[in-house]
């Protein structure tokens, strides 16, 4: 085998060029950020143009109704129970009307409304401020409207926490693992120093399952595609008066609250 110097250089050059293009292309793909939703979905995956949730408050009657929903989420997602408000991590929780619908206080509301807990979670905003401010794209928007969180890329700067107008995000101020009662091996635990929040259960949707809280809610939480006129969420929204939290911020929250009426309306 004979190869003169010129030929060798030519081949080496081409190889180098190829390598360059290869790295460039992979760099481009990486920087574009492939989303999980862009991979071929499993055949029974649940998909949507824009996921949304409707809270039907009348279905939450007893304390147990709330607890069941919260526990379903927190147990499945290995959310620690640290037991002090300073280090607290929570994905779904409750608060009362005046704190949920800030600026809509009305002291003449029926007593039962004033005292009543409302379930709270990330609103998966259309124009999410948390996504806008994140310096590493660790918080990003999926095509189906879900605001996702990459625990491995997050630098823990907490800019997203300052930006979220709903207090939906939690930071791991310390190692959460000792505070998880029973670790669920099918969902990753987090490390200290990263931010987390509700994920709309993407990992379940991909396997064709509804979010844990929805499953546990006995009809109190309805989940579906906001862009599909025939979906259940659209049906209940067209038949009932609903509210969104701080919609005046222009964030486009995708969690709706139906707070009036008896359950026969829904």
């Amino acid at each position, binding site marked *: 085998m004979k190869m003169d110097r010129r030929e060798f250089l030519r081949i080496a050059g081409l190889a180098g060029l190829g390598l360059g293009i290869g790295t460039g292309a992979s760099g481009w793909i990486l*920087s574009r950020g492939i989303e999980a939703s862009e991979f071929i979905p499993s055949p029974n995956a649940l998909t949507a143009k824009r996921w949304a949730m409707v809270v039907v408050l009348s279905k939450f009657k007893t304390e147990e109704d709330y607890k069941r929903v919260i526990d379903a989420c927190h147990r499945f997602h290995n959310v620690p129970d640290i037991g002090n*408000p*300073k*280090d*607290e*991590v929570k994905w779904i929780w409750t*608060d009362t009307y*005046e*704190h*949920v619908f*800030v*600026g809509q206080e009305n002291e003449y509301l029926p007593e039962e409304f004033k005292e009543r807990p409302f379930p709270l979670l990330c609103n998966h905003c259309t124009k999410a*401020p948390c996504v*806008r*401010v*994140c*310096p*590493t*794209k*660790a918080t990003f928007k999926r095509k189906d409207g879900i605001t996702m969180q990459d625990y491995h*890329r*997050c*630098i*823990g*700067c*907490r*800019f997203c*926490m*300052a*930006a*979220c*107008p*709903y*207090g939906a995000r*939690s*930071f*791991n*101020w*310390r*190692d959460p693992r000792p505070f998880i009662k029973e670790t669920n091996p099918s969902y990753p635990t987090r*490390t*200290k*120093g*990263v*931010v987390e929040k509700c994920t709309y259960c993407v990992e379940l949707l991909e396997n064709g399952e509804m979010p844990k809280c929805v499953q546990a809610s006995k009809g109190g939480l309805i989940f579906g595609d906001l862009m599909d006129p025939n979906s259940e969420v659209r049906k209940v929204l067209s038949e009932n008066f609903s509210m969104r939290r*701080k919609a005046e*911020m*222009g*964030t486009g929250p995708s969690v709706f609250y139906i707070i009036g009426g008896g359950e026969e309306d829904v």
Partner: protein
Amino acid sequence: MFEKALVGGRRYWTLVAVLLAIIGIGFLVYLKQLSYGLGITGMSRDVSWGFYISQFTFLVGVAASAVMLVIPYYLHNYKKFSRIVILGEFLAVSAVTMCILFIFVDMGQPMRIMNVILHPTPNSILFWDSVVLTGYLLLNIIIGWTTLQAEWKETAPPKWVKPLIYLSIPWAISIHTVTAFIYAGLPGRHFWLTAIMAARFLASAFASGPALLILLALILRKYTTFDPGREPILAVSKIVAYAMVTNVFFFLLEVFTAGYSQVPGHLASFEYLFFGLEGHGRLVPLMWISILLAIVAIFLLVVPATRRNETTLKVACIAVFISLWIDKGFGLVIGGFIPNPLERVFEYWPTLPEFIISLAVWATGFLILTILYKIVISVRESIGPGEPAH
């Protein structure tokens, strides 16, 4: 030139040793924070930025204030600043270094800091802040070092620094504007969501930075051969006076909008800071001290006799610095988080480890400043008295 930092008297070495000791202790506490997590600080789910980020915010202002010496000297040819302009540039170097350190100690995952560069995200203000801060640090190191070297060799500084000096002027404005944008663009944080934020930041920066500079120059005069001269000090004190009055004016504009409109969201943080909210008022005494000091400072700075008197000027500068430190290095950041987005009040107070780490960062900045100023003075001593050659 750097070798000049390695020879010095007992006082110099004692200062260096004390600062190194503080840095050492702070480093150990930082290691503890690294292993335990940021829960070692007073920060919480509701007040998710605390002492570190407020120090960062305050120090960006100190860094930007170098421009208040650069503009008169280089743009208006105000020769009297020739001896002190370098003090401003090196103060900027030290302040930006502290800013970067404060950001670093505030990170939950500091090992991943390169992610900001690996995944550049132009829609994030933090991305731009890291760009402008690094740029400003480099600009001031290069400008300060080359002009000093030229002075040492008793030649004019090389031609290529001039454009860099001009560039450093808008750049200084940019670092503080971008830092204000971190806050001023967030929906749902009424206290910060105000168009005057950047302007207010700049005004307070141009008061606190030059006030510190006056104090530093006077300290140098007392303990070294350095003499800033009387006139430059008087000129800088006028800058402090104007900037401080402007800053208080901007603050009153905010108070008017919140107080007259009576919009609850706008009022709440002010109420918390100055009167307490729902029985919580940990910051109230501090905020009133800040107001009081601001009044004293403005009085001493506006009345010509007290501004020209060195003793009262010193008091005024200390008052300006502490007042603005409380206002920006504490109240502004914490106040924005209280009440939280659900209008509940969770308070914040720094913990001892948090305080020690912050102190160590300040000590690092002060060490850098000490070394750089030492070099300046030794260079000046070696060439003898007289105006620099440019």
